């Protein structure tokens, strides 16, 4: 970034201050909120803070956001990666200051963020929504270099396209292996949606091939619904190996795409390794993550339990019963924006409730869902008993078709709310 650009940003900040100063924040001490990460959590939060009249700066290193939701259809071959991509133009034209750089460090005591080019910005409150980073130290043999041979495709973009190309290039009769980590990780039902759609691809395009799913756990989200559908739709194309049957991956050897478990070795034509994960690096550097690698927060305010004036939303945070989903990140972001605006006005936020809904596609026209309603409890979010749950088992195809259509509609609406 050139000096001129830097001046423009600072000029932009001053201009924002004058325009938005009026409503209710006194001119001499207008609080400034910085949001790090312009994904489902951060972009939503910046927008809602701005609309509440708060001076906000969004720091996002990429000019284009690539959405993970629906990226399994790109791997399936029925959707292009461009349909997953969103710019920040609408946020900019709304008047939100966006800094297209990587936040390099956070000094919580000085309330200061240092950017890639050395520029510093100060905040009254900081919102961290950096998503996840892969833990390239957790699974022997799996690092950034092996991910180029055995993609995780768990951050959407080049990795997603790589996995699709590998499947397309595979000869009919090839073995596909997917490795799924233990909890917690981004999008609990995501691996099983992907397994379903890869099996659908194999069944329709490469029927002599097969997918083996190696799982480091025995239980997973929407399990009965997935397994019911797999038995009906993919009996010859999808084999599921749970932890109890030796499904935990203990090592990978990227050079020949070998996946090692406690009991077996599989040499794959295509291997999709979803490794263990942690909160995005900036959350670790800011001191907001604990020994688990994730960020403990107060569910009343999303404020870090480790660092005052820092709030964490989305995948990076420990939300208890609330899963790491785009739906959840968006819902948390809207609430966090409202809460931070209240805190800056010296008000006390009321006890919130949050909702999550996650759709999964078992086939392109076969959708299932899980929902939850949550309230603060035991220092995290807990399920409200009697609410939520999954789609019914053994429902007519018509219900599955409707849920697939709703899933598609959801993607359009949420991305319009965040980026549109």
């Amino acid at each position: 970034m050139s000096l001129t650009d830097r001046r423009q940003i600072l000029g932009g900040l001053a201009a924002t201050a004058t325009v938005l100063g009026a409503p209710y924040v006194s001119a001499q001490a207008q609080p400034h909120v910085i949001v790090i990460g312009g994904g489902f959590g951060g972009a939503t939060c910046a927008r809602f803070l701005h609309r509440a009249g708060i001076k906000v700066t969004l720091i996002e290193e990429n000019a284009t956001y690539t959405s993970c939701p629906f990226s399994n259809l790109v791997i399936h071959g029925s959707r292009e990666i461009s349909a997953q991509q969103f710019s920040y133009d609408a946020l900019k034209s709304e008047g939100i200051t966006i800094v297209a750089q990587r936040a390099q460090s956070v000094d919580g005591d000085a309330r200061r963020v240092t950017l890639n080019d050395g520029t510093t910005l100060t905040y009254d409150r900081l919102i961290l929504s950096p998503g996840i980073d892969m833990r390239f130290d957790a699974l022997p043999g799996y690092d950034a270099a092996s991910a180029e041979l055995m993609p995780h495709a768990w951050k959407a973009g080049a990795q997603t396209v790589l996995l699709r190309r590998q499947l397309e290039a595979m000869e009919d009769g090839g073995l596909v292996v997917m490795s799924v980590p233990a909890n917690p990780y981004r999008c609990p039902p995501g691996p099983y949606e992907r397994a379903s759609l890869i099996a659908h691809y194999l069944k329709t395009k490469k029927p002599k091939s097969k997918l083996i799913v190696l799982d480091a756990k025995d239980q997973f989200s929407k399990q009965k619904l997935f397994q019911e559908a797999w038995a009906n739709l993919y009996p010859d194309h999808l084999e599921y190996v749970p932890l109890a049957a030796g499904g935990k991956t203990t090592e990978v050897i990227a050079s020949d795409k070998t996946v090692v478990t406690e009991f077996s070795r599989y040499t794959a034509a295509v291997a999709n390794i979803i490794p263990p994960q942690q909160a995005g690096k900036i959350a670790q550097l800011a001191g907001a993550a604990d020994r688990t690698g994730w960020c403990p927060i107060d569910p009343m305010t999303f404020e870090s339990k480790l660092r005052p004036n820092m709030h964490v939303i989305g995948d990076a945070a420990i939300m208890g019963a609330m899963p790491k989903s785009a739906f959840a990140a968006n819902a948390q972001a809207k609430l966090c924006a409202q809460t931070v605006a209240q805190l800056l006005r010296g008000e006390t936020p009321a006890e919130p409730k949050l909702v999550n809904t996650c759709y999964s596609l078992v086939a392109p026209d076969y959708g299932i869902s899980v929902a939850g309603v949550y309230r603060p409890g035991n220092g995290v979010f807990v399920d409200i008993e009697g609410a939520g749950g999954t789609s019914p088992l053994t429902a007519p195809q018509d219900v599955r078709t409707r849920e697939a259509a709703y899933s598609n509609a959801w993607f359009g609406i949420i991305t319009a709310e965040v980026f549109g």
Partner: protein
Amino acid sequence: MRIVLLVTTLALISGPVAAQSPAPPGALTCSGCHGAAGSELPSLRGKDAATITQALLAFRSGAREATLMNRITKGFSEDELAAIAVWIEAQKDVK
């Protein structure tokens, strides 16, 4: 209600949206699925509070068939659902 509308109107006049009463518990989530008209998922824009409350209560009791809303509304009391409906109606002048 009149106060909410008044504040909303003032906000429109003064440019950027000014302070509004905070959304009641759960209300901010709705817009993640219910947005502009013309989607498979019904828009709530322009609907009045009585209509929305009636629908929410019918989902909650099971009187009205749904794939998902029945599971979600069970997480709220009748009063909470009514408060959400009032808030949604008041949003029609915002943005």
